[in-house]
């Protein structure tokens, strides 16, 4: 059964090999002439100010959290979608209730302005 997945593993290593070969193989033909000005990070031609690995806007994390909630929902939905015909009408109603509760959550986030980009 698990042997089905072996070709995937092979493709994984093949793709990694191709990527690495492209990156490494290029070094045989490409020039290497580096100096401080060329290596500086692009900032419209001015000397870069400060470090870029900085703290960022918390807005992104809010989206990440809402995403987590809905991604877990998707996991439940997928496992339900594949068998819901066998489970019958009860499962359908149950899942509709589940989705309704999640919609309430979405509406709450909406009302709170968590989905509003900007402030």
């Amino acid at each position, binding site marked *: 059964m698990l042997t*089905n*997945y*072996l*070709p*995937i593993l*092979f*493709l*994984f290593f*093949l*793709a*990694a090999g*191709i*990527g*690495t070969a*492209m*990156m490494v*193989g*290029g070094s045989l*033909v*490409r*020039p290497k*002439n*580096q100096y401080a000005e*060329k*290596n500086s*990070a*692009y*900032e419209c031609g001015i000397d*870069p100010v400060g*470090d*870029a*690995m*900085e703290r*960022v*806007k918390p*807005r*992104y994390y809010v989206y*990440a959290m*809402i*995403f987590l909630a*809905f*991604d877990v929902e*998707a996991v439940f*939905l*997928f496992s339900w*979608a594949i*068998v*819901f*015909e066998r489970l019958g*009408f009860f499962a*359908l109603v149950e*899942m*509709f209730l589940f*989705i309704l509760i999640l*919609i309430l959550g*979405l509406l709450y986030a*909406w009302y709170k302005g968590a*989905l*509003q*980009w900007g402030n």
Partner: protein
Amino acid sequence: MIATIMKTVLMVNILLVVIAYITWAERKILGRMQIRHGPMRVGWHGLLQPIADGVKLATKELIVPTGADSLLFLIAPVITLVFALVPFAVIPFAGAPVWQITDVNIGLLFILAASSLGMYGIVIGGWSSNSKYSLMGALRSVAQMISYEVPLILALIGPVMLSGSFSMSKMVAAQEQAGYWFIFLQPLAFVVFLISGVAETNRVPFDMVEAEGELVCGFHTEYSGMAFSVFFLAEYANMILISAIATLCFLGGWQRPFPTVGFLSFLDVVPEIVWFSLKIGFFLFLYIWLRATLPRIRYDQLMYLGWKMLLPVVLLNIFLVGLFKFYSIPLLIYYLITFFTTVGCVAWCSKHFYE
């Protein structure tokens, strides 16, 4: 075993050549849409242009910016490429099992899981560049991709409910058995899938990631030469992947158009792989067409569209499919219901989009 290995190598090679020629086709079509010729000099109608581009990119210097985390910087494009190519292992290119590398029974889940891992390449690449533009581009890209992954995944629940399987070949078999393509039963999911697919691959009009006017080039601002081209290969591979999923889940995969109409059976002369390629080609043309037509939307509009429009709409689709399965509604009436729901949703969304 040997056959599978050869098949895999062959598929990856064909894929890479196809990707090279999509860039050519993109420049040609964009050129025609802007009333110019596109590449004409290298080879007949610029047909050798992708090769010239490849040679040019290979001979360009690879610059690792000062202060960058050089190991992560160099690994990031490879990560993106790997997770763009790996999902193709479970894509069936035609009906016979020969045309599929491996038929995993959780095919669709595997594709979704593997392709969303590609996001790591973007984050790592953007963060390790030590450039503000790259960091901003990477953050935006990831926020956009996770926002649109939710409607994308939920849109695929519909086909799974109808076919009762995650296997991509069984998905098409279910459409063959039912006698209709799933696009007719759930045009709503199809529209949502298309929109979020475009957003997921960071293409125009959702290319906030690149936003030349403000972010220079997004997460690959600092990438040059081969590293840049690896990122691009991955982007185009993702486009093909999204097109392939759309074809398999909604457009009946390798079936000819109108598979139940008898007098069209002379179309069966055309091999299945050709129909599959044609359908994928249609979606790729759509990508290029969008790029020539639409302006980039604002970031707040992007989030608005993803969370406040596509998400409720795609949940509505799940309700509709569930009802269809349990109440044996006549097919024609159900077609009409879904059709008018879709038209209504599209009209409502486009009316309230620019608030």
